[in-house]
């Protein structure tokens, strides 16, 4: 992200199952799952998604580029996100600072986010500034390189390194994601590094890297422009044509064919950190957007943790009670996914015991499966969550773009909803058995000098962080 607050959303995925808000109303159902939209493609390949909502005199403009950290090359990790920052440094006809003037400076906002799979940029503003926002986005898509120089890149490099320090290196447990990704995927696998990248690779990025990346990936044929809110669609289409129409199509993009992975045997790791309480992480490789198993895995997560009656939460936090907190959920990226569990112990309870206690709960669900009532409760909040989300122009803009970009269908949210609501106890039992196997990564993060606090310390391999180091 360009601006702070939510570092976690760097590794953004569509989180369908909200952990704390379950629920549906008995009377509405799938009929409420609607976003009116129209879509078309310009001759240069730009996909345009429009959704009118006059409720509030505001608009959101979102440009979604199909490029993320998985498109980086080894030795250049963190590049897609660094590039996101460069996109805010001004372009051919938009001097630096003007973008902020016509967003934050008029009661609106702008930002960007980078995930493994895509990079998005957005503006939310009063609706009378729509043409201005289209102008801003078109100029950096068409003319970023006109004013780019190494000084701009270096400035953003320093800022991104500070983003990494703030979110990873100076954060208790901050290296967990990086260690887990590295252990879950083979060294050359495009999901084996975290979006933020390593300090050494950030230092290595050159001006030529930036230019090549831009020319290939920041072309209209790799982009999805959504406009949502209070606007006249005829006028909006004319402006889109006026500002984006003559940006030339880029070269065809060859996307890596990325397969989900399985781990033949488990890995058991321990990392010493400046923490006061140890913590256990368990991660299983699963599936990405293209597999419908993700829906049953979403439901499995909501059956295991979130509410106080969820199985793992109830056993570990309430009944025993040996843990201060536990979470388990599926993360879905475009090509791959992970099911990740995290347990924070209470004093006098070891990570070894907690791992065994969690495994016992998981074994039971693998043997017996969940009940239909558990599934109903776990998904009951989906309709409310969806309808509530309709109040956000930006939320709708990103949802339409995710569907178009990942599934070739802006209306994929309806299919997604139907598939999630159709998950059965047998589905959940099946995916628990298929994915929650011994082929997993177990990571203990322990206080400095306390390696014996790891789960099964004698079998755990000590690891260091790859990127920042202590300072």
């Amino acid at each position, binding site marked *: 992200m360009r*601006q*702070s607050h939510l570092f976690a959303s760097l590794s953004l995925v569509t989180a369908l199952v909200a952990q704390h808000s*379950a*629920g*549906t*109303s*008995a009377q509405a159902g799938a009929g409420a799952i609607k976003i009116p939209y129209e*879509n*078309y*493609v*310009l001759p240069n390949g730009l996909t345009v998604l429009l959704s009118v909502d006059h409720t*509030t*005199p*505001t608009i959101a403009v979102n440009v979604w580029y*199909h490029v993320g950290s998985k498109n980086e090359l080894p030795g250049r990790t963190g590049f897609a996100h660094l590039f996101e920052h460069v996109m805010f440094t001004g372009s*051919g*006809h938009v001097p630096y*600072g003007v973008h*902020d003037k016509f967003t*934050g*400076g*008029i*009661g609106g906002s*702008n930002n960007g986010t980078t995930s493994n799979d895509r990079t998005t940029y957005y503006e939310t503003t*009063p609706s009378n500034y*729509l*043409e*201005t926002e289209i102008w801003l986005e*078109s100029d950096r898509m068409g*003319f970023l390189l006109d004013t780019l120089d190494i000084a701009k890149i270096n*400035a953003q490099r*320093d*800022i*991104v*390194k*500070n983003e990494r320090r*703030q979110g990873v290196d*100076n954060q*208790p447990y901050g290296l967990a994601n990086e260690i887990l990704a590295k252990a879950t995927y083979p060294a050359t696998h495009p999901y084996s590094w975290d979006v933020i990248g390593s300090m050494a690779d950030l230092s290595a990025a050159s001006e030529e890297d930036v230019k090549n990346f831009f020319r290939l990936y920041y072309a209209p044929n790799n982009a999805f422009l959504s406009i949502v809110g*209070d606007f006249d669609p005829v006028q909006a289409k004319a402006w889109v*044509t*006026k500002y984006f*129409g003559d940006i030339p199509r880029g070269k065809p993009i060859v996307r890596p064919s990325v397969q989900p992975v399985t781990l033949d045997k488990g890995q058991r790791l321990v990392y010493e950190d400046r923490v*006061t*309480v140890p913590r256990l992480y368990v991660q299983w490789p699963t599936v990405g957007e293209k597999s419908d198993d993700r829906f049953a895995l979403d439901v499995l997560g909501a059956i295991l943790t979130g509410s*106080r*009656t969820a199985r793992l939460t109830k056993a570990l936090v*309430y009944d025993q009670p040996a843990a201060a907190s536990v979470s388990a959920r599926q993360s879905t990226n475009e090509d791959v996914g992970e099911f990740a569990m995290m347990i924070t*112990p*209470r004093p006098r309870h070891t990570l070894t015991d907690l791992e065994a206690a969690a495994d016992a709960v998981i074994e039971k669900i693998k043997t017996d499966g969940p009940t239909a009532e558990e599934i109903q*409760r776990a998904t009951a*909040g989906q309709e*409310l969550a969806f*309808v509530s989300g309709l*109040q*956000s122009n930006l939320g709708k803009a990103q949802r339409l773009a995710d569907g178009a970009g990942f599934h*070739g*269908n802006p209306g994929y949210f309806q299919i997604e909803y139907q598939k999630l609501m159709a998950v059965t106890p047998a589905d959940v039992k099946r995916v628990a058995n298929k994915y929650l196997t011994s082929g997993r990564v177990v990571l203990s993060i322990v206080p400095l000098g306390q390696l014996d606090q790891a789960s099964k310390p004698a079998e755990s391999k000590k690891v260091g962080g790859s990127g*920042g180091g202590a*300072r």
Partner: protein
Amino acid sequence: MKGLTAAVVVALLVPVAAQQSLDRSKVPVPGKPAVLVVPAWTTTTLASGAELIVSERHGLPLVSFQMTFQGGANQYEPVDRRGLADLVRSMMSEGTKTRDADALSMALQTLGTNVGFTVGGESGGAGFQSTVGNFEKTLAILAEMLQTPAFPPAALERLRAQRLVALTQSKVDPASIAGRVFPRILYGASHPFGQYPTEASYNAVTRDDIVAFHQAYFQPGRALISVVGDVNAAAVKASVDRAFAAWPKAGSKPAFSYPAPPERRATTIYLVDKPGAAQSTFSLGNPGPPRSTADYYALQVMNFILGAGQNFQSRLNANIREEKGYSYGVSSSFQFGKGPGPFRAGGNIVSAKSDVALIEFMKELRGIAGGRPITDEELASAKDSLVQVVPGQFASVAGVNGVITTIWTQGLPADYYQQLGKNVAAVTKADVIRVAKQYIDLDHLAIVIVGDRATIEAPLKATGIAPIVAVDIDGNIIGSK
């Protein structure tokens, strides 16, 4: 792209000549701004003394329900029981006289929602968002939780243990450390703003304390019930009357009488050692004014220019992040409430640049107080932003409800938003400089830095900006060089 379902390729009819004549360096002229429409609401008083505000908003089948109580932990927590209010709000979800916590949770899960209780420093409440069809049932559960909590002793022990683990974890988290030490330095241990939960205060809390706090706090005489959404105002009143029929008339709004903050000390750097820290966490500031200050609008304009989070090109961020690259982001804010909340400027600074970053912070704080003239563009941008951000705050039922509760808790006039444009427009450059001088006390600034003392202390000292005092994570002086 593999082709969109139902995609329509539109033939582009714009002539090539028109394309070539497009002058992209010309900034598009914005259209006419929309007329501000402030949501309407009705206010009534219930038999219990609680106020009820309903704002009908049709379109989506949603309801936002909120109960708000005036006063919070700062008014109702004993000094040796800090953390009590937070335990109470969690205990509210631990079951009622008629059903245990699991049954309650499952009933709410089935309704697709959750009832959350909060007790903050100066206000608290309970609320939910639901589909309109589940509103009555969810309201009945909230009323049951509020009026007949069971407070099982085992739940208190579990919650206490969880809080103690979180407290232990927080002692190595730079943001948490700054969150303890900065207000402690500003307000001292005997002011509510300078206090926080400790192992001792959590361990002192008994079930009797929970029962007593609940009885004394959740009273209609200090309560607002606000409902926004796809409802009918009369029907909502009938529902609320039914749900709270047994609520006896009691309670009144607190006075919010805070002790005066301690006498300010000359500008000092308070250094909290965090060995090996990759960044130094900066907090610079002093006690500020309450929300009721007549200078509110001038302060908002001034802070927008200086360091507001929503202003990426604020002076602090433009300098320390964008130009120098010392940080991922720096900002400043006033914490406007009933009491004199702090002014704070700060951010996370790469350790090696701690000294030069401090010089830049001080330069910008001096600059906004007159050292660097306010430009026309800065003033216009601040004013435009503060006014034009308003319609977006009314975009959701929860947003409208938040606006209503803020107006009520802060005692603002009902036409606050109608008058906002005029009040912001009246602020002058001279006002900006005046309030900067008045409310940012450069001679008595507390500069709290959480960082790697071994590497940053000497460079900080060499800046000559202020003497350095090493403090622990409770703000106690542990020796200085």
